[in-house]
């Protein structure tokens, strides 16, 4: 079976699994809520099923893009950095979290010139403070420090 077809098969199976899980969860819904909900879920499961069937029928035919999971290392690390940033926002506030997140991310991405790192971080945060805090009076997450 072609790798791209296996990927499609997995996507289809995930869709079916989500759809069936939600369908089972919706059994207790009132009839008026069920109508549109079931319509959507049956369409979702049906499309997942079609994807599974077509990927099995065309199992040996090449098609679609093959993805190498090894290339996910950097994007997933970036995702973790963003997730940590969001967790930090809640704990130590927006500005302190941003002062840590932005230079760390720039360094992680391989940028090594200190002046642009300081200038961009400072400039962006000054802009956000001026627009959101000073001008628009938006209360950004403050946390423990600032």
């Amino acid at each position, binding site marked *: 079976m072609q790798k791209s077809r296996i990927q499609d098969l997995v996507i289809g199976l995930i869709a079916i699994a989500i759809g069936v899980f939600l369908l089972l969860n919706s059994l207790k819904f009132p009839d008026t809520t069920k109508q549109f909900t079931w319509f959507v879920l049956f369409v979702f499961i049906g499309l997942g099923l079609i994807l599974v069937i077509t990927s099995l029928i065309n199992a040996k035919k090449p098609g679609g893009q093959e993805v190498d999971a090894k290339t996910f290392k950097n994007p997933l690390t970036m995702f973790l950095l963003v997730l940590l940033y969001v967790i930090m926002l809640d704990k130590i506030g927006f500005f302190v979290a941003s002062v840590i997140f932005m230079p760390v991310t720039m360094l992680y991405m391989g940028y090594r010139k200190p002046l642009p790192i300081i200038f961009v971080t400072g400039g962006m945060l000054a802009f956000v403070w001026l627009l959101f805090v000073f001008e628009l009076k938006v209360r950004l*997450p403050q946390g423990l420090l600032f």
Partner: protein
Amino acid sequence: MFEGIELAFARLFTWDAALGLFIGVVGGMIIGALPGLSATMGIALLIPITYGMDPTAAILMLAAIYTSAVYGGSISAILIHTPGTPSSAATCLDGYPMTQKGESLHAIGLSTTASVIGGVISSIALLLIAPPLARLSLKFGSAEYFLIAIFGLTLIASLAGDSMIKGLLAGAFGLVCGLVGFSPDGYARFTFGYIPILGGIQLIPAMIGLFSISQVMIQAEERGKTSSNEKVEAKIAGRFLPPAKEFVGLIPLILECSVVGVFIGILPGAGGDIASWVGLNLAKNQSKHPEQFGTGIPAGVAAPEAANNAVTGGALIPLLTLGIPGSSTAAVLLGGLTIHGLQPGFELFTKHADITYAVIIGFLCANILMGLVGWAVGKYLTKVSKVPIPLLIPCIAMLSILGSYAASRNIADVYIAVIFGLIGFFMRKYGVPVAPIVLAMILGPMADSHMYQGIIQANTISFVQYLFTRPLSIFFMVLIILALFAPLLSKVISKAYQKKNGKMADAAEDI
């Protein structure tokens, strides 16, 4: 009307109004260009600062932000593949490939020109056709709104990209996301006891996640490699204003998309996001080479940009005459009107005619000023694409997080954006388009609530029977059928043409 216009000019030519207009245009452009900040959010955030302003200047500023932010959204869509507003998501598809080809200035020029034309046409429509169309909009019921949503969903097939099934699956996933939260009859659906999503998955954080955070993750693949932006820097060339021949060729499409955009703007609930996809679909269906869309062609930028800016004036028509917002941004604008003691309706065109017409004429001026500012600073805005990717990534991430938080000031929305970022990343990597999710998330709840209301209104007959009892519903059903079969029909016609041309060519060779 003419007396009102006369008084309006007196109100319009004041320092307050001029300043409101200028701040609205420039501020809207910046808000729109920043990923994650939408016109809706910008207006919602700025309404409190208009308390102390003259009503004309205040409403004019908010209306100018609306149109200018829609245009500004195209700048980040073109330069960094991150739509500044939901309305510019469609522009990414051809705008960003143009940037990759070193034609960013050209793409922004096209976007500016199309946006100005779309905006000006919508302003004229607002000025001229508001009263008669308001009467027609009064006849819209739940059945029609439901069918408008279904009409929009038919577009998913054309957004599907390489794989139709994956595109439709993405659309269905968007509908599933739209189910989360209270159902129209008040039942908490698929919330699993998590209170922050009782009101549903908010569109702005979901969209920021799908488009921006997933883009940050994709760009992280470039870690340690030569910055691709340095390549972009070398390729930035060309002219801002589109060449005369190209412009003349695009004019019919731009005008058509503008008219369609005005119409969509008038339809309650359907905003610039839907219009831009309809515009793109229109351009694709009319093109002799639909397969070129997505590779960076001018029509792919001009069509959605004309359509989404044309929505702005259209959306103000039912807002000002009936109090029915034509889009989510118009709904926020309604709050602005109310704060200043202006109640939409007939009174707005009689008792407050001076303010109303000043806003409408000022809105026309805002669209022209938007073009002038765009032309003046457009070339400088392309400098955004020269920023090295390692510096750009944390800025986009920070603005995305900020945008998803500031929309409702709820940290739960930030987590939603991050989760959708991860989903969007995997979907994009495995060839599943993310745009249908956004479209379905907008239209799903709309279809759901109007279907529910329609069933109640249908009373003794079935909902389907009820649809056939309403002439306007039948009109929309015909539109849906046409939309469903249009791609197939255009393929058959184009094949027939190719066959005919082939035969003619063979005959010519024989001679």
